């Protein structure tokens, strides 16, 4: 018999050869010192590799960077967002206040959109009021154009065409531009005509309008005339009325970009899973086939022996979910990690639904919805975790 190859020896030591082959190998190893040495070495390799692989088990959960759910951090995050929001409100408030103040100095005629006095439309009724809520960029653009026009009063028809061209260039669709012209208070246009003919006042208006950020994002539905009146008359600006201009919309968008993570921090925490008799959160079955199978297993598990008091990790995957869930801010492909509050196993994922509720998908146990008001205190877990 030839010497045994290493693969055969390992298969023999692993018990993966049949009885006949075992007898042959044993007989050979008993009389072949070389193969006997190889077997001894193989035993050492098997034991050594097992020991090395056991060292890999000493891996704690959460070794990868993740966001903590500590209350302090939540507070810091919310304070940070609050600071940004406060700065935003202050900046917009000052800008709007300045605008109102200058408009007061210039007189009511300057609050009209000066460019529209070039548009030949019949005046129907007195203007409700000036278009203070007109997007800043548009106002700036048209004010500067009208100032230019005022310096060249001889060009009476050409500016209208130029204005139309500029409106097109500013990526406003022709339809929208047309609508704006039609909705403009017409008598206001007539009243503003005298003011626009004064080039110095037009320049002053342009100078006021120029510092406003040039973000052309017109509000979809302009506020009613009475609201405008209040805005012009009151210098004490309220936030709900201020966040209208294109510039503010842009900045609010930037804030929303940063908001979700802090939102998740706010929503994360521990939630108690309602038992079938409980009437707290709403439980509904998952639409997936997993839920059906889980229900089947639930019926079978009722006949099985009761689980030990200290639930093993596998119990977290049983159709009956853990009583207490901890919603982590660890981002996962399908949402954020959901853990069992007692065993710290990751057992599903969660996502935000609306501003004050979350949806939790527990795989085999189904889908749950929780409101933030139902959140409970998390139990103290092993600090090594």
């Amino acid at each position, binding site marked *: 018999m030839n010497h045994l190859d290493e*693969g055969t020896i390992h298969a023999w030591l692993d018990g*993966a050869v049949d009885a006949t082959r075992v007898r042959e190998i044993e007989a050979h190893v008993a009389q072949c010192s070389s193969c006997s040495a190889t077997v001894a070495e193989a035993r050492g390799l098997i034991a050594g590799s097992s020991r090395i*692989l056991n060292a890999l088990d000493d891996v704690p*959960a959460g070794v990868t960077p993740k966001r903590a759910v500590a209350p302090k951090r939540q507070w810091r995050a919310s304070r940070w967002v609050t600071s940004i929001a406060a700065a935003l409100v202050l900046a917009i408030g000052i800008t709007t206040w300045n605008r109102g103040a200058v408009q007061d100095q210039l007189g009511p005629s300057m609050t009209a959109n000066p460019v529209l006095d070039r548009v030949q439309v019949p005046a129907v009724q007195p203007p409700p009021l000036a278009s203070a809520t007109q997007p800043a960029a548009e106002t700036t653009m048209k004010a500067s154009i009208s100032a230019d026009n005022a310096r060249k009063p001889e060009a009476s028809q050409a500016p209208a065409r130029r204005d139309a061209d500029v409106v097109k260039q500013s990526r406003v669709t022709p339809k929208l531009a047309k609508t704006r012209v039609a909705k403009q208070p017409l008598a206001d246009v007539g009243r503003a005509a005298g003011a626009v003919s004064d080039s110095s006042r037009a320049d002053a208006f342009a100078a006021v309008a120029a510092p406003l950020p040039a973000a052309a994002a017109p509000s979809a539905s302009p506020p009613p005339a009475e609201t405008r009146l209040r805005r012009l008359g009151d210098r004490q600006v309220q936030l709900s009325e201020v966040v209208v201009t294109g510039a503010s919309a842009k900045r609010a968008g930037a804030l929303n970009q940063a908001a979700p993570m802090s939102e998740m921090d706010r929503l994360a925490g521990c939630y108690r899973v309602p038992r079938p008799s409980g009437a707290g959160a709403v439980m509904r079955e998952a639409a*997936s086939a*997993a839920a059906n199978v889980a229900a089947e297993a639930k019926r079978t598990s009722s006949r099985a022996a009761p689980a030990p008091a200290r639930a093993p990790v*596998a119990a977290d995957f049983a*159709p009956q979910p853990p009583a207490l869930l901890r919603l982590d801010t660890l981002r996962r492909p399908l949402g954020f990690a959901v853990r069992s509050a007692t065993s710290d196993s990751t057992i599903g994922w969660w996502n935000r639904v609306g501003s004050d509720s979350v949806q939790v998908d527990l795989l085999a146990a189904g889908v749950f919805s929780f409101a933030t008001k139902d959140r409970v205190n998390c139990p103290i877990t092993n600090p090594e975790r």
Partner: protein
Amino acid sequence: MTDVERLFRTYHDPLVRYLTRRLGDRDWAEEVAQETFVRALRQKDLQNERAWLFAVATNLVRDEARKDTRRRRHLELLREESKTDAFVEQPITDLERAQERALARKAIDALTERDREALLMREEGLDYNEIAEALQLSLASVGTTLSRARRRLVEAYEELRKVGEGRRAGGEGGGGGRGS
């Protein structure tokens, strides 16, 4: 239909341990294990379930490993582990364990993917037939694969350990020289 609870209770722990050893991150391992079980639930007829579960988990890991973000995360993990070598302030037992874990991780990463997977599956008790099925190997080659994997793992570990000891000895010698 497969009893889902029995499936979880029987295979969850070995599967997560296999994946943790494979990936070095228990959270990630549990996530892959979950996905594996979800797929198992969708499976109508599950023959040789242990081989099937380990094969699916292995394929998921391979798919995930192709993603750059995952690789980056894994590299970050390795970097974190290598950092632990420098933490002299740690208690000695923790330091030794951390060093041993880092060495073991480097050694297992030195194997080829197939050798590594076969070895980790064997450690979880899969027999040769199951390993052959999970990894699409011939039954006769499993023994050879395992013997090669074990030898390489032990040799890589010993080599890394010698290099580490040599580096530490060099560092101590150099430090003494500067001190005198």
